[in-house]
């Protein structure tokens, strides 16, 4: 081919080339009729690696884990019909937590759309409420621009999943096309605001520097915006206490002296007390979710609320903001730091000393202490052991339930993107495939999944994927032989009637691990937890499932009292703060 002759591409090759030029390194997927041509084009390339999962839901969670840990866009490829619908749970999970993801779904040929063809599902319609945007491809020529736009939309502004539905006839080998990847994406209808309004910035600084009892309340937006360093710099400069949502953990190190721990339903006493008593709350990239606020009518009545969010729709959605600022956490923190320097603004050091004295009083309650003396294992002790065995350095993914809360509370995360869990959607079955995505991105780091005996069975088939691609994650099952969080609510609100929260036909997880070609270990209550965990972590190149027997009766505390204020809390069974 002479240099003047441009290379020509089939439709499927356009897809593959566009993915490559979008910077894709991994595609998580599962083939099927409608995407066979795309798979055929993938066969001939080595620009990205395709990971064949065992269920499309896991493809989305793995891409999600990859995206959360790296900040890059996760990529999924599934076929039409059931392939696409299986991906929906993972798309919803990414949507709720603002995770950048592109999902390419095959579709039946254009001529068959609307005819109830084999494996036809209206994927654009099915996914509409759970995507940031979606594209139905109409012509082959559109493919590069559509894919470029999808990646642009997925990762800019408030990130989120984007679906591209491509009918089979557009990617088969009948035609050849020119290829050009659009370098600059401009869309007249899509221009996210990044910088805060300078007047609002000034108002906010005046409010929180003059406040006597300010609190920083930070969320996943700080991590997504890569604003952690600036957050810590800002917080240290004015000596303000910082609390974080489940999604924001790690933005400020869990061991930082100004960090109060997580807030909300299972937050620490000091975090929730600080919120309730604050005269100024500065929220960065958090959305005053119901798992934080408890009863909104009782929420922090004395506080001036400064709400910084890239999504204007989040502001004043549940709690009215006194000083709203639309912008990215990173830009706004930069603006804060610059203006404080320029105007030589300082905080009220004397008032802050008094505020810290009050907070340290709440800290003395030691709300996370637990009784480790009994004969049964405590789940808290298991997470402690994981923390010690990994020096607090591991990437930790979790599923959903009690173990998730223990993982959030007892493993102080030291860096952003270290704690990977499904916060908004609360998707059981997230942990194992998400860990796969993280481990592929960081093969030299320890990646552990804290799971439960319920959750782990929701995507257990991925053990097979882990064997095929040698993904040596470590899975720790906090096994209480029941659906612990459901059981806890049944104990607290349904008179202890454990309706369908048992699992009395538990598989042998060790044999299960072995059946999939991995290593399985039990930790029974009379065995040494720390040494077993260390042994598992030492097997660097093997996937290990550690089935840790824990107490059935244990509840997650602290816990907000239903319908109360943010700091109305249970500290233990029958013990209110």
């Amino acid at each position: 081919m002479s240099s003047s002759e441009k290379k020509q591409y089939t439709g499927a090759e356009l897809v593959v080339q566009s993915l490559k030029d979008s910077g894709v390194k991994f595609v998580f997927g599962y083939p099927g009729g409608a995407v066979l041509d795309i798979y055929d084009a993938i066969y001939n390339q080595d620009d990205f690696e395709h990971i064949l999962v065992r269920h499309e839901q896991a493809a989305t969670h793995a891409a999600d884990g990859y995206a959360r840990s790296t900040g890059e866009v996760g990529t999924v490829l599934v076929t039409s019909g059931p392939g696409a619908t299986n991906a929906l749970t993972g798309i919803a999970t990414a949507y709720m937590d603002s995770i950048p993801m592109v999902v390419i779904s095959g579709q039946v040929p254009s001529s068959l759309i609307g005819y109830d063809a084999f494996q036809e599902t209206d994927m654009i319609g099915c996914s509409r409420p759970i995507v940031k945007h979606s594209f139905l491809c109409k012509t082959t020529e559109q493919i590069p621009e559509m894919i470029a736009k999808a990646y642009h939309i997925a990762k800019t502004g408030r990130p989120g999943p984007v679906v591209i539905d491509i009918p089979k006839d557009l990617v088969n080998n009948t035609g050849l096309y020119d290829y050009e990847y659009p370098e600059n994406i401009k869309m007249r209808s899509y221009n996210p605001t990044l910088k805060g309004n300078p007047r609002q910035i000034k108002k906010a600084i005046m409010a929180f520097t003059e406040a006597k009892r300010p609190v920083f309340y930070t969320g996943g937006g700080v991590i997504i915006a890569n604003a952690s360093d600036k957050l810590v710099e800002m917080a240290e400069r004015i000596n303000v206490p910082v609390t974080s949502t489940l999604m924001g953990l790690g933005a400020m190190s869990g061991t930082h002296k100004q960090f109060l721990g997580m807030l909300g339903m299972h937050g620490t006493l000091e975090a929730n007390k600080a919120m309730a008593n604050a005269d100024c709350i500065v929220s960065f990239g958090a959305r005053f979710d119901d798992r934080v606020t408890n009863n909104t009518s009782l929420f922090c009545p004395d506080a001036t609320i400064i709400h910084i969010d890239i999504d204007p729709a989040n502001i004043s959605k549940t709690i009215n903001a006194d000083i709203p600022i639309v912008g990215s956490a990173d830009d706004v923190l930069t603006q804060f730091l610059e203006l404080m320097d320029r105007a030589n603004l300082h905080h009220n050091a004397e008032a802050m000393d008094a505020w810290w004295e009050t907070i340290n009083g709440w800290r003395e309650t030691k709300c996370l202490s637990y009784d480790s003396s009994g004969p049964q294992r405590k789940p808290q002790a298991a997470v402690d052991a994981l923390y010690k065995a990994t020096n607090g350095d591991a990437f930790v993914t979790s599923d959903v339930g009690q173990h998730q809360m223990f993982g959030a509370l007892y493993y102080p995360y030291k860096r952003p993107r270290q704690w990977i869990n499904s916060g908004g959607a609360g998707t059981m079955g997230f942990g194992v495939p998400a860990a796969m995505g993280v481990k592929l991105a960081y093969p030299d780091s320890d990646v552990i999944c804290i799971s439960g005996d319920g959750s782990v069975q929701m995507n257990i088939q991925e053990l097979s994927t882990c064997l095929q691609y040698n993904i040596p994650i470590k899975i720790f099952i906090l096994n209480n032989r029941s659906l612990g969080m459901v059981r806890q609510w049944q104990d607290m609100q349904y008179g202890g009637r454990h309706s369908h929260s048992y699992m009395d036909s538990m598989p042998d997880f060790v044999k299960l691990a072995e059946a999939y070609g991995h290593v399985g270990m039990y930790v029974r209550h009379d065995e040494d937890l720390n040494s077993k965990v260390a042994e598992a972590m030492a097997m660097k190149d093997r996937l290990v499932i550690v089935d840790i027997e824990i107490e059935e009766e244990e509840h997650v505390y602290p816990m907000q009292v239903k319908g109360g204020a943010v700091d109305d809390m249970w500290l233990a069974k029958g013990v209110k703060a």
Partner: protein
Amino acid sequence: MKHILTILMENEPGALSRVVGLFSQRGYNIDSINVAKTDDPTLSRLTICTSGDLATLEQITKQCHKLVDVLTVKNITHQEHIERELVLIKVNAADPETKDSVKRIADIFRAQIVDVHKECYTVQLAGQPGRISALVKTLQDETTIIEMVRSGAVGLLRGKKALVPKAY
């Protein structure tokens, strides 16, 4: 409280379903909806009449604006605006007496009879929704309505103010 939202969006397949879906997904009311392309065929203009308190309206506006296909959203209710609706009403007009009275009512309302059949008339009126409701009621009192269709309101701001795509 009733509000008129006017939305400018990309004339793309599926764009309307995103707006409509958003309303049902978040539990907002749609009293009427009207959509068609504009002088620029790449743009569609939607008029949605909805109801809710101010906080709900603020959310509706923000959520609509968040849709990637949407360029601008404006609540025109509280500004000087023109609001119009079109109605077509097919009424029984079998006997000469009813024919006369339908004709008389149409004249009073400055409506037109746009289709004539030996047993029925079809009356057309464009105007403010209140005037249309009055016409419907008056015709109901006089004869029976066989069928009718209302377009839902469309609206524009008065004066020079306009919804136009921002330069980008």
